[in-house]
């Protein structure tokens, strides 16, 4: 496990370097002056500009420029937004938790619905229910997410009136900002209307989370179906059957555990996909997250915000990726480090 951790750690550091290098080079690729793109100070006077040039070491060679940029990023200084002229790290601190909350809930929904459906399809391999699940899955990943979101709003918010259509929580509730993750903040607050606020926040998250979850859920269906079919064809399953175990015992004690391990490996990769879908969904549901903020920054040509938003978002995706790798390695001894004798 130690070598595994060390290898992941070097991969992590290396990828972080590449990501910061990418976001550093974005300042050169975007139109306008590089140092202004770095700092976002569009109204800087000549003397302020001189200070900025010193801070980002713009007169030095490209390596010291990168080093200066890196030290700014590491100390949490992303410059200020060109559009609102407020420090970006403050904005990110408020936005990122909302996106985390939404995407993690969506991931949970996608896994809890997709994986069992995939298992059912695999157990009923080549029967009607298998084909029905597969056709549904294909329809699910063919639907454009923005259209699905609009239809969901029309049906559940306007026609039926069951769920709210926009935002994170009703404005009536005043929740103190602690972690930014709404549910934790509500539980920490000492408001007398805590539970009303909690149910209100859950009503707000259901619709966008389900819309985001649909496409990843269909991918989980396919992944878990393939994994289960592979496991059921393995010889240890045949051995278990020969021992006289009942069908349920085989499925629940042996097959599901081994199939789940194969699926967990892909969760990290699917998460990146899910976050992209979440960006679009945030726009439709006016969710105060980083995706909507990023797309609005593109409209406003707020290059500093685009650059730092992308950096933070990709770091978040990558950290989740690494975490799932660790979970996978913890559950599956075969994945840790060297395979002896192979």
């Amino acid at each position, binding site marked *: 496990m130690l070598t595994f951790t060390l290898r992941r750690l070097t991969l992590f550091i290396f*990828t972080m370097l*590449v990501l910061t290098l990418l976001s550093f080079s*974005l300042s050169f*690729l*975007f139109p306008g002056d590089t140092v202004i793109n770095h700092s976002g100070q569009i109204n800087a006077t000549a003397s302020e500009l001189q200070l900025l040039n010193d801070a980002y070491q713009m007169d030095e060679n490209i390596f010291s420029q990168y080093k200066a940029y890196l030290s700014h990023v590491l100390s949490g200084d992303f410059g200020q937004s060109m559009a609102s002229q407020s420090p970006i790290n403050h904005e990110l601190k408020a936005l990122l938790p909302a996106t985390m909350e939404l995407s993690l809930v969506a991931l949970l929904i996608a896994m809890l619905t997709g994986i069992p459906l995939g298992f059912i399809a695999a157990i009923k391999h080549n029967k009607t229910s298998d084909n029905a699940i597969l056709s549904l899955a*294909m*329809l699910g*990943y*063919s*639907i*454009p*997410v*923005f*259209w699905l979101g*609009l*239809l969901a709003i*029309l049906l559940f918010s*306007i026609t039926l009136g069951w769920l709210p259509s926009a935002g994170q929580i009703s404005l009536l509730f005043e929740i103190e900002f602690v972690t930014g993750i709404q549910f934790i903040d509500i539980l920490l607050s000492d408001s007398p209307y805590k539970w009303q606020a909690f149910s209100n926040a859950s009503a707000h998250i259901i619709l966008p989370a389900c819309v985001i979850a649909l496409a990843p859920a269909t991918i989980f269906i396919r992944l878990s179906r393939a994994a289960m079919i592979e496991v059921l064809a393995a010889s240890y399953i045949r051995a278990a059957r020969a021992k006289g175990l009942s069908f349920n015992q085989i499925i629940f004690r042996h097959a599901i555990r081994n199939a789940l391990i194969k699926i967990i490996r892909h969760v990290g*990769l699917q998460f*990146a*996909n899910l*976050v*992209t879908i979440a*960006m*679009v969904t945030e*726009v439709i549901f006016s969710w105060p997250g980083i995706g909507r903020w*990023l*797309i609005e920054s*593109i*409209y406003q040509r707020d290059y500093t915000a*685009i650059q730092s938003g*992308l950096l933070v978002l*990709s770091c978040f995706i990558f950290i989740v*990726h690494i975490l799932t790798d660790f979970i996978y390695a913890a559950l599956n001894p075969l994945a840790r480090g060297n395979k002896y004798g192979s």
Partner: protein
Amino acid sequence: MAREKIYLEEVFPSPFMQLWGIFRKTPVAMVGFTSFIFLILLAIFAPLIAPYSPVDGNLDMILLPPAWHPDGDVSYLLGTDDLGRDMLSRLMYGTSLTFGLSFIVVIFSLVIGVIIGSLSALTKGVKSSFLNHFLDVILSIPSLLLAIIIVAILGPGISNTVWAIAIVFIPQFIHITRYAVKEEFRKDYVLASRLDGASNFRILYYSVFPNIVERLMSQATLAQSAAILDIATLGFLGLGAQIPLPEWGAILANGLERFYIAPWTVYLPGLAILFAVVATNLVGEGIRHALKLRKEN
């Protein structure tokens, strides 16, 4: 009585024809294939058969519902939008933008990807290993996110969107070509033609490509369904096709303000996107299914 001796000549269809034989017998795949051909024809001939202009509006006929609605007019079969533009014509022209452009983009990325991929399959060592790791990083970034980044650099617009998506899809073709070519090069028939003195490029062209073309096609259908969704999503977000262009995602975004009075301006483009993506996916599933069956026989 003399017996005629008849020798039947055995005919072995080429791998591609075997695949087509299996593909043809799957009804669902053929439905998808017919829809796919229909969309391609529509994309080419839309300007000839569309009844009205996609951009000019008729201000007397604003927000007309589709013809099956009691207030509908049969000369505007799918109704009109808020500027009196005929929805049917806009959707037809949109086929050449959303579907046609995605098709061209995928062909372009496929050609570039296959060239780079097969060249890289012939190289060994550090260069090849670097490429492999680099591709792994690029492939783990979702295509839409990468396209949004590139559009952010280039600025919004349909031509920038097309470039962005073309660049985004090249790595996956490099990856699959590289993998497939390497796998074929290990097989005996390649060794046979190598012993005949064929050069690497001759082997690639005459021996390897005919055997990997189906895998590339299957990857191309995957890429195209993603490309349709990406073009439409960028159009919807206002980063792709700009206002008067009848791109499906942009039409949908345009109808958004009057969603509750004129729901057909949102339903119809969404259905068009869904139809195009499902048709593409059905073709892809058909190819993969046929590939699997051919392998088993």
